[in-house]
């Protein structure tokens, strides 16, 4: 017993640095953000002045914040929807055993390797009305130029498209791996049970992919909620704030205006929103429903 107790003690001693690191890296900044959010503090000038919930109060009445939350929600919804539908379809396409598919697949995942900021730059120029290749093609076809980044109704979708360009391959990759890991025997069983292709898809493939689907959607939701690079490079929140997602507003407030207290309040609210949303998502949809 002493040996095992010793073993446990050593194990604890071994992991305690990591626990400390986790606390330091994960917990402390969050607590610090909460602390700052309760203060009026303009970076670099004087000490923070305690302000209670003033920042949150102002946030509540700040129309721009509400708009940013809504814009973020729209962006997340459309981006994840597009990425998932296309990525899922591509995963199936690439799962077909045809020569050259592996190479094609490798090419298809290249966008993931691109730094988001570079992706933003690339798409900024692609969508540009004066130099952009897409508008050049459109005029070549005899149509009017499209204000991809300046039209009030289009700009957000342009960013969605750029995000989808970058992250659809990720969805594809995860779904492809999940598809590959589905056991062959279940499909044989399905054949012997007489399921047709459609039934196999809906009754076997989808339910078995469910955990992967949930994880990839969750990852994409959380990740696209934090997206800032594309807005930074492509629109800076314009036109007329139609692409001002929450992280961008936060960046402008915290890093350009240096109004740290207000930015921290925003960050904390964002964290709470994301946490509530993911918890809701997990509890409602659930990753595995085995524990019913």
């Amino acid at each position, binding site marked *: 017993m002493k040996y095992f107790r010793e073993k446990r003690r050593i194990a604890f001693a071994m992991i305690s640095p990591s626990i400390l690191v986790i606390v330091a890296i994960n917990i402390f900044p969050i607590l610090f953000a909460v602390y700052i959010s309760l203060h*009026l503090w303009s*970076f*670099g000038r004087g000490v923070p002045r305690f302000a209670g919930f003033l920042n949150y109060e102002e946030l509540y009445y700040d129309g721009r914040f509400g708009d940013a939350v809504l814009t973020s929600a729209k962006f997340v919804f459309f981006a994840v929807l597009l990425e998932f539908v296309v990525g899922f379809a591509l995963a199936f396409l690439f799962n077909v055993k045809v020569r050259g598919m592996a190479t094609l697949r490798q090419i298809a995942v290249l966008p993931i390797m691109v730094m988001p900021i570079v992706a933003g730059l690339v798409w900024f120029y692609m969508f540009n009305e*004066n130099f952009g290749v897409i508008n050049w093609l459109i005029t070549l076809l005899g149509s009017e*130029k499209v204000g991809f980044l300046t039209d009030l109704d289009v700009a957000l979708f342009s960013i969605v498209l750029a995000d989808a360009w970058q992250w659809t391959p990720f969805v594809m990759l995860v779904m492809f791996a999940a598809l590959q890991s589905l056991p062959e025997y279940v499909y044989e069983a399905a054949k012997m049970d007489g399921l047709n292709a459609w039934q196999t898809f809906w009754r076997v493939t989808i339910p078995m992919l469910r955990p992967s689907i949930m994880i990839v959607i969750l990852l994409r939701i959380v990740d696209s909620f934090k997206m800032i690079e594309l807005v930074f*490079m492509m629109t800076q*929140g314009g036109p*007329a704030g139609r692409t001002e997602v929450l992280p961008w507003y936060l960046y402008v407030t915290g890093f*350009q205006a240096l*109004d740290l207290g207000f930015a921290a309040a925003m960050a904390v609210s964002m964290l709470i929103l994301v946490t509530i949303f993911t918890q809701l998502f997990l509890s409602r949809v659930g990753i595995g429903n085995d524990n019913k």
Partner: protein
Amino acid sequence: MHFENKQSWIKKAAAMAVAGAVSSIAVAPASAEGVLNGETIRILAIGDPVFQVMQRIHGDLEEMAGGTIELDVRGFDVLRQQVLLNAQNDVSNYDLISVDLPQFGEYKGFLVDLAGYVESSGMDWQDFHEAAWTGAYHDQMQLGIPIQPHPEIFAYRVDLFEEAGLEPPRTTEQVLAAAKALHGSKDGLSGICWNGARGTPLGQTITMVMGSHGLPVIAMDAIEGGFDLGNVRPENMHPQMESDTASEMAAYLMELMKFSPPGILNMAWDERVRVFAQGGCAMTYIWSGRSAIYELDEDAEARGKVSYLPHPAGPNGLNVSTLGGWFLSIPDNLPEDRRDLAWSVTEWLTSPEMMAEYTKHGNCVAPRHSVSVDEEVVARCPVIPFVDAMATNGEIAGWQRPPVPEIQQIFDILGAEFHEALAGAESPEDALKEAQRQLDRTMRRAGYY
């Protein structure tokens, strides 16, 4: 100037990595004859042309200086944060920092007064453009030496104007008339380019155009020929976005929209210059240094066909261009024993010879009269004598962008709110009113009144 363009942002990231690697392995050159005499100087710099040139010729520069030059180049926002953080250190990490003209108001508490050095070293301060030199003069202190100050001026295509029989536009009215005449007169030609992108770009446009209509965005004290930027007090902080001047400015910008190229709502910094360079617009607002983009590019359509003016004036305004750009300053937490060296390097980097040197590498800025008459420099950068003339004529000033700590917030709010108006999502009146409200709130939060 300042908020660097998007492309250079990427280049800079790479350059920074390289520079970091280089400086970490750099050893002091054997020859110790130059200004550094074998020592190391540390500079916190902005990713704007003059410092990018320094990065490019880093090896030569070190050889000339006879020592090690650690050049940390940062983006605008990061630079500002580092400067502010560094100011809180007991001992500064940097010998020299680069300061943007409107930042002196925010930084003046922790910069060394250089007046004594100027005096003792016999620097010919009158050789500098007056607006540039006095832009760093706050509370009777000389807080920085100009290294790359340049104004946002007005460029127009002489050939197109002559063809259409138009006069050079000295007023906004003339601008609009010319824009209307030229817009669409050729395939792909728009009237005028300017910074219309949301946020800081548009925010700067508003402050400067409002300036050329005769009023700064906050209630500064009027003095002879302008406003007193060296003495901004709390009661000066009231925003003036509900003034008649602001309405005139707004009306002008709304009009400009009609004669602007597609994508103007997302156009900023270099992009407008490049559209102008390739013949996409007949006129443009431009930071003078950026004229290098077409003047040094043999393929640019606009090359050699451009003439320059100060900002066209509004109905009650002046022909005054806004000065911006960078200065070298010494943080006051730098130990005494390093200050002499920091000064020597400042003197060297801002010397006429070095200024001329920078123009060889694509930096068309020369805030010294002596350099502006150098024929080689003028041949490389036709804009320089124009700017020199404007400086001499008093057509350059810095008050349009008040040197207050909240200047960046002012840009953000103006640039975000008025974008709504430009995009047609809100009326200009409402946008101004909302901007006023937000600016007012910002100033109150800061505790000015």
